[in-house]
């Protein structure tokens, strides 16, 4: 079974790589991060629009935090295939977005709209990077 699986891996890799049917690890990371940031933005919006209970939003942000933690190392990894300037840009917006995810505004006293705008911007930036 293992031999067949290894053969399948070889055949699939050749076929899929030849047709550009798989994403590079960097593109996959960027797409996943963009999607997680989009989910975080939607979560904060729904909470303040009264569509989501506070406990649900808090628990969701804990999951986003785990999902997004440690991406800075992947962004700066040598094999990422992006320029140093692009990597710096991504890193900067990633750090600002991660700070929001770590301390989301789940009260009425803070500026949640600014946080949502930042998360949206970060999401778009990562999704764009994933497509390049």
């Amino acid at each position, binding site marked *: 079974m293992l031999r067949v*699986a290894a053969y*399948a891996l070889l055949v699939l890799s050749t076929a899929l790589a030849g047709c550009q*049917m*798989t994403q590079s690890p960097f593109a996959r990371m960027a*797409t996943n991060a963009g999607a997680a940031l989009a989910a975080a933005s939607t979560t904060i919006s729904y909470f303040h629009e009264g*569509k989501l209970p506070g406990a649900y939003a808090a628990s*969701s942000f804990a*999951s986003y935090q785990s999902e997004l933690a440690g991406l800075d190392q992947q962004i700066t990894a040598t094999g990422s295939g992006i320029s140093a300037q692009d990597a710096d840009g991504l890193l900067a917006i990633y750090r600002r977005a991660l700070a929001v995810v770590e301390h989301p505004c789940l009260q009425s006293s803070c500026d949640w709209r600014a946080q949502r705008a930042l998360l949206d911007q970060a999401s778009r930036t990562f999704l764009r990077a994933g497509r390049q």
Partner: protein
Amino acid sequence: MKKQWLSIALGIVTAIGGFLDVGTIATSGEAGAKFGLGLVWVILLATVAIILLVSMIGRFTAVSKKTYAAAIREHFGFRFYLLTLGSECIAEVLLLAAELGGVAIALSLITGISWHLLLPVVALLVWVLIWRAPFDLIENGTALLGLVMLSFIVGIVVSGGIPRSLIPTLWHPQIQPGDAASYLYLIAAIFGATISPYLLYFYSSGAREEHWSRRSLLLNRITAVVGMGFGSVGSLALIILGAINLQPLHIQSTTLGELGLAMAQPLGQIGALLFAVTLFATCLGAALEVVLGLSYNIAQGFGWEWGEDKLPAEAPRFNVTLLIVLVLSTLLSLTGVDPLQMALFASTIIALFLPISLSPLLIIMNDKGYLKEETNGRAINIALLFVLLLAFAAAVVSLPLLFLSGGG
């Protein structure tokens, strides 16, 4: 007669409510959020396959009065039995860890408490239920609660139904450049999640626990066809909700909580809570079934005394096995791996081992020594062969695609 129809109705309701688990929830949600309705066909195909398999297992047990695990040991010998058991142990311990994580995430979404802290509580709850609760309560209680998943249909209706623009994705999936491996991977994972062999061992053992006989064949057929058929509504509804409410927002449903956003969009806080309750009920029900299914398998294969309705002192080795399986999975889930990722990995491993679990059916379902005149007909055998071919295909590609796609 009235009693028989009551048990048929209960069987159907149980099958509907018990269809979903963390694997089907994870794969369906991600499928809808990433590929619109482009993977609906896989759910339909897998549902037909599980109807076929469950109805066969029920017929086998009702007529032969033997469970699937006991028949494998008896017919193929101890070595082959150990092969099936080994693959089941790996796959189901992983799946149980994911189910426990799913229950903990559901409780976390309701209470706001970290799911890592809730995991030991969940493990304790599962242990108390398997230790003290009778089989009927385990089988029917959580499945009835799982009917909350029908609220997903309300979510679709309130969202305005399926937009016309999505309909063509049924036969022409939207696969972005670089996403083909992910699409193929989800096909194998959905197959593994829907056709989990624990269901076969659990169903077979349940039939013995409830003393099925030839008179139960109608109950078996209706439960399998109607119950499992309607049960897939939950998976289909999740795909649709993901496609309607998550895909336009670029959300890929990579954590379980994200799926609830698809219910919060049309139904607000109630929608989010209904999703969390559904997640809780379906994962708890599946966790109980997985731990029982694997323990039944081990006890029956080794010829030990077994039975959920027996006192622990009457079946001590069976009860110790339940505890060991639960402890192993709890330790695995305590490593902190996200339950959705764990569920996807478990579905992949299940797909990898599917041929080992399902192949014996082809032989024993044609053995007149067990089934007399109730052996498979030609059409059923052809259908079973087709399912086995699909299982082999899923097994060969599942692991390579997991690495190539990065897990969906």
